[in-house]
């Protein structure tokens, strides 16, 4: 069985899933797919380029707010609104990525966090446009071009989200295996060497951040019309933290893992929060357990690639970190 069989099998399974689930579960499954997409977008940075972003909520929030405003104030068809929101976020992401990639490691993480919090603060500062703490509500799902209206129903929307997730996965998979993508692995492994071979590593990292923002914005743009509202918490650092946890638990550097991690996280959160108020405690325990005992994540456990995920490999490497300019 090669990956194509696996992909088609998973796609069919997902396509049939709504018929096996009670109606009320569909909402949470749609959100799980959206969060899976968000986690996968962050994996481009974390898993392939070792760019730890603590501010991926910015991509999600930007996509959601841009899409919400476009749909609410302009009579755009839904797919056009979503694509425009992604395009707007990508344009905004370019200067952000330019600034963030000037630094590395912890300062990179702090800069990404700073930009997300800046977005959060701006929502309150420009209340008239953003709705402040109320956010934007009443986001419609206008019918698409040629009067395609099937995504107005919840089931239809599920397929729209599924289509976007599978399409994004195929795109990301092609990207990480392209000449461009293979350089990301080299940068992750040893940036000094990659540069001395002749790669402009800063530009590769910049492009990666912009790509991750683009796919993250797609997740946000899918979320806003589905929920019908966009609230400031989308921009909040807790959202960034959750996504990062999903990537690590799912298995960084695998694309599939974070999708599973994102989905599992959301469904588990939903179930646990009905049982107990201290569900974050359980989550914390699961997270710690994964970091300590299974750094290769869920997908690593499934495929049996022990110790081979990006994070595990990087952990094993810290002791032999070479000295550049010695």
């Amino acid at each position, binding site marked *: 069985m090669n990956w194509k069989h696996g992909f088609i099998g998973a796609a069919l399974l997902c396509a049939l899933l709504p018929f096996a689930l009670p109606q009320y579960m569909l909402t949470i499954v749609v959100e799980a797919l959206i969060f899976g997409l968000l986690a996968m977008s962050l994996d481009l940075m974390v898993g392939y380029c070792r760019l730890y972003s603590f501010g991926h909520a910015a991509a999600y929030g930007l996509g959601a707010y841009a899409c919400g405003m476009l749909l609410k104030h302009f009579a755009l068809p839904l797919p056009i609104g979503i694509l425009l929101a992604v395009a707007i976020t990508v344009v905004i992401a370019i200067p952000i990525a330019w600034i963030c990639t000037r630094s590395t490691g912890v300062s990179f993480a702090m800069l990404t966090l700073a930009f997300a919090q800046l977005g959060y603060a701006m929502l309150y500062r420009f209340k008239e446009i953003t709705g402040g703490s109320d956010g934007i509500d009443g986001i419609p799902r206008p019918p698409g071009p040629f009067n395609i209206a099937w995504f107005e129903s919840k089931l239809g929307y599920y397929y729209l989200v599924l289509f976007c997730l599978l399409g994004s996965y195929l795109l990301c998979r*092609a990207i990480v295996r392209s*000449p*461009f993508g293979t350089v990301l692995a080299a940068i992750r*492994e040893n940036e000094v060497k*990659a540069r*001395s*071979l002749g790669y402009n590593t800063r530009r590769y990292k910049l492009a990666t951040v912009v790509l991750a923002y683009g796919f993250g914005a797609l997740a946000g743009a899918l979320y806003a019309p589905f929920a019908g509202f966009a609230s400031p918490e989308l921009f909040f650092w807790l959202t960034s933290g959750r996504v990062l946890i999903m990537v690590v638990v799912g298995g960084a550097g695998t694309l599939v893992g974070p999708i599973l991690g994102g989905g599992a996280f959301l469904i588990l959160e939903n179930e646990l929060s009905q049982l107990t108020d201290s569900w974050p405690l359980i989550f914390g325990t699961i997270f710690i357990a994964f970091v300590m005992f299974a750094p290769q994540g869920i997908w690593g456990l499934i495929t049996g690639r022990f110790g081979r995920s990006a994070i595990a*490999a990087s952990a094993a490497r810290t002791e*032999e970190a070479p000295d550049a300019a010695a």
Partner: protein
Amino acid sequence: MPLLELDGLSRRFGALLAVDTVDLRVETGEIRAIIGPNGAGKSTLFNLITSVVKPTAGRVRFANEDITGLPVQEVAQKGIARTFQLCHLFPALSARENVRIAAQARDQGRWRFFGGDAVLRRSAEQADAALQRLGLERHADALAGTLGHGDQRLLEVAMALAQRPRLLLLDEPTQGLSVKETDHTVDILKSMLADRDLSMILVEHDMEVVFRLADFVTVLHRGRVLADGPPAVVKESAQVRSAYLGEFA
């Protein structure tokens, strides 16, 4: 016209003048060894040529072009490849992928997101050729980080070779190798030069290696060029002897 030309190159680190007005010319096809005691400024000289550190004064000219202060990656794109004193590899990638990445660096298609299969195939072929050249083909699928020290050194040379350089800078290629491995490496380096339009500068402590490989030897001492000439001449120089014995001030 020399391939590489250093003109009054200096680099100061605080109070230390690590490289002090060095003039050096390397012709096409030449192998030059740079020797000198620890702290003589050999590695700093490499870092100056490859723009890892910028000179405080002086110029670097390569192939009739001023490359002083260019970004590191652009110096590499001009055709200067180097290995590091401490091996620099991509440890969690296979040996083949290490070399393929190096070959791809000089490919116009290195930026392609999609439809880059031809680029990947081309660079993989070049990688296999370079691996074969260094006798590493049986390790092609092993992770670079799991190779023995000697093979890691050879792998880094294979990567440099895959960059199709005009000038190759080797920082102590035989450091830490056994006598047998050293012989093997010297043979390979010699064969690389035999049929190639390639110049080489090597920093080396092993005098036997220097005398077997080099056409010219430059002796550095406290950042200055102390002696310069064919190996036999330099060997006899009283100045050099005293520098190594620590009497020269």
